């Protein structure tokens, strides 16, 4: 099994050597059943022929060979798991790239490069709160599975779709968790209140908060963690063309200095370093 590498603090540069390989699709599985206008969620398994080291929170760029020039760009996906010769990503159909990806078949060739980016901090004996918004669960599956002291973790998953759409079975059995669904505006408001209470509780002691989810979720949590002054890392996502720091299309505004490239300097940033 490839061993994730755990660091105290992400550095600004990826320390591991990424590679570009042609791999094959092992399986593509729809997870649960969706309702309403949203698109389904999927687990994609890809063959990982060589043992590769990675850190939870890192990502890969995927581009099926069958795409030709359409869509043009590869798409970035957080690594959900990489165990037993298989790399797994958890994704939702949101645009034309992910829609095209759902048409892929077992055995098809996919160009993959990674692992990319820095990954989340790991502080084994520090109470660590994992805040996932929907599809943002993806990196926390790998994080929880690799963490040396499971008892220091607590996960909150806020989700809109049916619970069956999220592969909770992949989380370690002993992981403390709250899985909270928001179907209405009132649900959302009470969820945000709950988030604030728990963030406040974590801010009262030496702790770490890790966050991943859609942009509106990140914005709300970013505001709360700055208000309560708790050590927090956010995993950002952005439109990317290259994933390696060259196209300068995925930058975010920094609190100080030039724009930060989400792909090469992130995707995980300290909440105090980025503007929303």
């Amino acid at each position, binding site marked *: 099994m490839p061993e994730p590498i755990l660091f105290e603090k992400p550095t600004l540069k990826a320390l591991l050597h990424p590679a*570009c390989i042609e791999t094959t699709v092992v399986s593509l599985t729809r997870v649960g059943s969706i309702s309403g206008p949203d698109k389904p969620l999927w687990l994609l398994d890809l063959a990982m022929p060589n043992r590769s080291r990675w850190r939870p929170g890192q990502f890969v760029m995927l581009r099926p060979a069958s795409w030709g020039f359409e869509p*043009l760009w590869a798409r970035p996906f957080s690594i959900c798991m990489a165990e037993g010769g298989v790399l797994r990503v958890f994704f939702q159909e949101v645009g034309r790239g992910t829609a095209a990806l759902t048409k892929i078949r077992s055995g098809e060739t996919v160009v993959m490069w990674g692992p990319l980016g820095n990954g989340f901090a790991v502080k084994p004996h520090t109470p660590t709160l994992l805040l996932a918004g929907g599809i943002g669960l993806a990196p926390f599956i790998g994080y929880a599975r690799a963490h040396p002291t499971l008892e220091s973790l607590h996960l909150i998953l806020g989700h809109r779709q049916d619970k069956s759409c999220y592969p909770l079975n992949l989380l370690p059995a002993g992981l403390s968790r709250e899985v909270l669904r928001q179907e209405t505006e009132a649900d959302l408001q009470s969820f945000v209140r709950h988030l604030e209470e728990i963030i406040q509780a974590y801010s009262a002691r030496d702790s770490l908060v890790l966050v991943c989810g859609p942009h509106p979720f990140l914005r709300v949590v970013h505001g709360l963690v700055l208000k309560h002054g708790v050590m927090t890392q956010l995993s950002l996502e952005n439109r990317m063309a290259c994933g390696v720091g*060259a196209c300068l299309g995925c930058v975010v505004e920094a609190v100080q200095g*030039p724009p930060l490239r989400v792909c090469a300097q992130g995707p995980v940033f300290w909440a105090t370093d980025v503007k929303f």
Partner: protein
Amino acid sequence: MDLSVDIAGLRLKNPILTASGTFGYGLEFMPYGNLTSLGGIVVKGLSWEPRQGNPMPRIAETSCGMLNAVGLQNIGVESFVEKKLPLLPWSEVPVIANLYARDAEEFARLAEYLADQEGIAALEVNISCPNVRAGGVLFGQDPFQAAEVTKAVKDKAGTKPVIVKLSPNVTDITAIAKAGADAGADALSLINTLSGTAVDIRTRKPRLANVVGGLSGPAIKPVALRCVLQVCRALHLPVIGIGGIASAEDVLEFILVGARAVQIGTANFLRPDMSFQIAARLPELLKELNVSSWEKFRGTLEA
């Protein structure tokens, strides 16, 4: 066959260069291939002062192409020379600096500074960036300004070959090419991106914060080929073909119409080892086509 080519005294081991703005400072691609297997590396456009670039969103995917309005975000020429260049294998692969400035004086200042840098093999003058307010494509759309900027750089460039990068967003690209040539350019590279936009009917917003950006990728290859053909027929200066190249076959198409070398641009985003793959594939393809020297193939389009 011997794949090497000569661009105004600059020897490239093969005609594959990377296009500015698509290959970072070169270092970003080191995990994916051997930089010294390339003919040369053209780095991200450099200005005298660091630039923050344009607001987001800066890139948009289009049919077989993409738009960008990055706006020349870069660390500044001095930081590049001090921090990045020493890490590049410049003694084994030519490193070409792409220059951007707001006026001829600033271009001259950049050229003067880089003329003294051993690790810089040549200068590429960007008079064709569509994404900046001052300078940029404005220089490349007016023969007088194109000549003024070219001369300013050439006068200070010492022994470094000066390559002028042309915009396709002009009525007659050969007029600008001639202006550059007359002003002392040693070579021309073309084309930079085509001006374009993309919009969203649901949000009623442009897909780029800058509204207008530069189109690149396979979609623009026919335009690029036409421009290279026209310029190669109009004057006898070495031409570096750029625009939508994504395979060794594409490389030969540009050489067939007269280019001496090429630059791989947006295709570097399709997979980070693209330029290395193309450089590795080129000798096999030439063998398949029974091409034994560049002289017997370059510019031999039967038309």
